[in-house]
């Protein structure tokens, strides 16, 4: 890398704050800022960029990469705003007809994306045979019928994560009928096995393309205005990065990138590869597990805006406990939250001269933190002391729920409210509070690597080792395709789930490969 181009700008858009950091070639934080997240999100991002590049000693001309973690896509789904209308094609009949596409979706979301769907013949068996031949004619007829009514297409086929031919054939027809520029999302590129959840994620992905394009345009325009000529990468939900063009094609993968970034940032700031991470915000605390340097992924189905999806997300336990969580005295003790004074803590908290007892006041009164402008009045001592006991038990329970093994593990605490966390927690060997804990998520975005993933159901008959080796090769190839340096790719995860109720050994193999960015 040339010495003139050695800085990275990491940006993380959170619910309350938009953080930005600049890291130098040794990954040292040389500038950071926290700005309020704006209603339109984009102007908050611009403000954060302006604030961080405006800091002394920053030569913006040396920024080579910009990494963005953003909630744009999440908000668009939750608010049903700016979504494309989507033609939903499933290839699988006569199988899968028993549940139609979009069945069980919230009505307002269906209205937002149109109600255009069909199921045509095709799809594969788990062993690679066609269920029946692909029906190209019916596919053409469907796309013709929605011409002029849709802006995007979502295509899913049975067992496509392993055998994508029918999805690709359908995509060709979509472009032929609806124009070469039509947005096409293919399920095998988005999700793993489990048809309905994967199809749902694919439809959401297609619907989000407009939002993704807007964000990409806004960001590149801002960067251009500020004279920053850098490659833009997006953080995704597994803690790795994807290129801008990839993010525009797969906006759904940005959902959940916030917690992933804070876990990766925590790993980087402490040098640990395996630990529990607590990201303490104003209203809630997210607990996640760092395993082999990456967030542990959730095994449960993930619901986005009322839609069941199965795409990969960090396994997060969120509890309603943050710096602004309100403490209330009751007849039998104290109640904590779930409401929070949030960003108004500096006006409302007792330690700032306000009148609302909060968990931060409890931490101050208990000697855990030195925050605020005035001493916490003595009249609240009893309630605040009790509150701290409740805080500790909530944390202890969350820790216990997240841990997979019996031994004690280290815990890394990040986020603005981290003073709440005590130094001694059952099951935790030690509590680490790294420098720059308050912008760990933006740092996580800035230091992230790129990944490739492979997921298939396969017979173990050729030999287990051979089968796993082949899957690893596929994952590596995907990582290289996503921009990883082919020399430095590592396999970070191999999962083997045997299938029950079959007579010969068949397993579902999932492999993830990651590597640092190659030359761009």
């Amino acid at each position, binding site marked *: 890398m040339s010495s003139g181009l050695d800085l990275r700008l990491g940006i993380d858009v959170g619910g309350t704050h938009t953080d930005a950091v600049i890291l130098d070639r040794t990954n040292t934080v040389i500038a950071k800022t926290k700005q309020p997240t704006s209603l339109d999100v984009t102007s908050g991002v611009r403000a954060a960029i302006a604030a961080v590049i405006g800091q002394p000693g920053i030569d913006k001309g040396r920024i080579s990469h910009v990494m963005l973690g953003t909630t744009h896509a999440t908000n668009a789904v939750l608010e049903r705003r700016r979504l494309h209308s989507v033609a939903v094609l499933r290839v*699988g*009949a*006569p*199988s*899968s*007809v*028993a*549940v*139609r596409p979009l*069945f*069980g979706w919230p009505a307002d979301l269906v209205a937002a994306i149109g109600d255009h769907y069909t199921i045509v013949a095709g*799809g594969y*068996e*788990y*062993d690679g*045979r066609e*269920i*029946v031949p692909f029906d190209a004619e019916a596919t053409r007829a469907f796309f013709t019928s929605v011409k002029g009514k849709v802006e995007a297409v979502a295509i899913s086929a*049975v*067992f496509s994560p392993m055998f994508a031919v029918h999805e690709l054939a359908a995509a060709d027809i979509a472009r032929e009928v609806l124009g070469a520029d039509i947005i096409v999302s293919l399920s095998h590129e988005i999700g793993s*096995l*489990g*048809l*309905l959840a994967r199809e749902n994620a694919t439809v959401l992905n297609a619907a989000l393309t407009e939002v993704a394009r807007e964000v990409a345009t806004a960001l590149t325009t801002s960067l251009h205005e500020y004279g920053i000529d850098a490659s833009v990468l997006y953080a995704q939900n597994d803690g790795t990065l994807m290129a801008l063009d990839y993010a525009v094609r797969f906006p759904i993968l940005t959902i959940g990138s916030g917690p992933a970034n804070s876990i990766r940032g925590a790993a980087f700031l402490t040098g640990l590869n395996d630990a529990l991470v607590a990201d303490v915000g104003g209203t809630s605390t997210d607990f996640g597990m760092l395993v082999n340097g990456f967030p542990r992924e959730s*095994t*449960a*189905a993930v619901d986005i805006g009322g839609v*069941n999806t199965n795409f990969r997300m960090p396994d997060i336990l969120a509890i309603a406990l943050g710096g602004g969580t309100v403490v209330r005295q009751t007849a039998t003790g104290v109640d904590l939250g779930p409401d929070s004074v949030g960003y108004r803590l500096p006006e409302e908290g007792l330690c700032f001269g306000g009148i609302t007892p909060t968990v931060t006041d409890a931490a101050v009164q208990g000697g855990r933190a030195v925050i605020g402008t005035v001493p916490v009045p003595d009249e609240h001592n009893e309630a605040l002391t009790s509150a701290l006991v409740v805080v500790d038990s909530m944390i202890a329970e969350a820790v*216990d*729920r*997240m*841990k*997979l*093994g*019996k031994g004690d593990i280290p815990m890394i605490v990040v986020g603005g409210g981290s003073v709440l966390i005590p130094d001694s927690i059952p099951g935790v060997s030690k509590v680490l509070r790294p420098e720059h804990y308050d912008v760990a998520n933006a740092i996580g975005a800035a230091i992230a690597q790129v990944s490739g993933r492979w997921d298939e*159901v396969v017979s173990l008959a050729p030999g287990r080792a051979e089968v796993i080796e082949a899957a690893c090769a596929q994952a590596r190839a995907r990582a290289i395709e996503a921009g990883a340096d082919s020399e430095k790719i590592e396999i970070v995860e191999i999962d083997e*789930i*045997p*299938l*029950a*109720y*079959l*007579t*010969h*050994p*068949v397993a*579902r193999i999932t492999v993830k490969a990651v590597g640092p960015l190659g030359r761009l």
Partner: protein
Amino acid sequence: MLIEAGDIDALARGCAVLGTGGGGDVTTEALVARQAIEQHGPVRVVTLADLHDDDIVMPVGGIGAPSVSAEKIGSGAEVEFLRTIVEGVLDQRVGALMAGEIGGGNGLYPIAAAARMGLPLVDGDAIGRAFPEVHMVSMHVAGLLPEFIVVADERRNSVVIRPIDGEWGELLARAVTEVFGGSAAMADYVMPVSRARGAIIEGTVSQALRIGRSVQSVSDPVAALVDAVDAVKLIEGKVTDVERRTAGGFVRGSVVVEGYGPDAGRLVRVEIQNENLVVLEDGVVLASVPDLITLVDSHSADAVATEVVRYGQRVAILAFPCAPIWRTPRGIEIAGPRAFGYDFDYTPMEVSRVVRA
């Protein structure tokens, strides 16, 4: 009684509890059932007493790997197709459908077909829970032979199997299922009502509904569930160890739960083979197959399947009595502890409990 679209959630939760850790996921089958009822109307649930002696009851279910059926969902028309084949073999009309297995997704399996064809659904099934093998059914206990088994796929392929006994039926049905792509629809032990009496387990659809409704909008779902099924809460605690491996097409292993609250200091182990088989404490059997053993989430009382149970989960282990037919000598021989390779005799859970107290 009618099953309407709004009942499916409760029914699915109940079927999951009766799945005793296995039986396959209920989510997809619940969607299938809801879509069919919304399209074709509610399903009438009948008892054997409501039917004529010579009405034909057709038990149905899905067979194969749950991970395949979550990807290759059915056409919804398989049961209709099974019916035409069955009627061809018997030269008689089918009068009612029944779930072969109430536990897990198979408990919901006949709902969609019953709605589509306007056939009544028998309030009962052939297991009263979930069991891993095809011959572990009440008709086999009652000495009936599966004269024929029909296995069909979504393409309208079908095979009629005429096995010499239940074990052969199991082997052949699995082999056919694999050729069909790892998941298929099956009808077996098709019989007139006169033979079904005493050979099926009645009331299990209502039971599943009762279970599901008991836990909806109550402050203590676990207590409500215990009441609804006359269960015993063996322990409430945290999962501290999970071990799983695959052997012979089954997931085997164990789950250790460490008690908290009133159960602090206790350590209980659940042994699994797709379903929860045995609960042990200090070498003493607290409950075993064929009695039902279900792990439920300690807050929501949602059933926790053996495939997803993991360290740190807060669970209650519930045991409740199996149907009386499983407690007959032949029932215990087919699905008691020794049938699963354990070297101890079955003791009904109520008795284990008294002895322990």
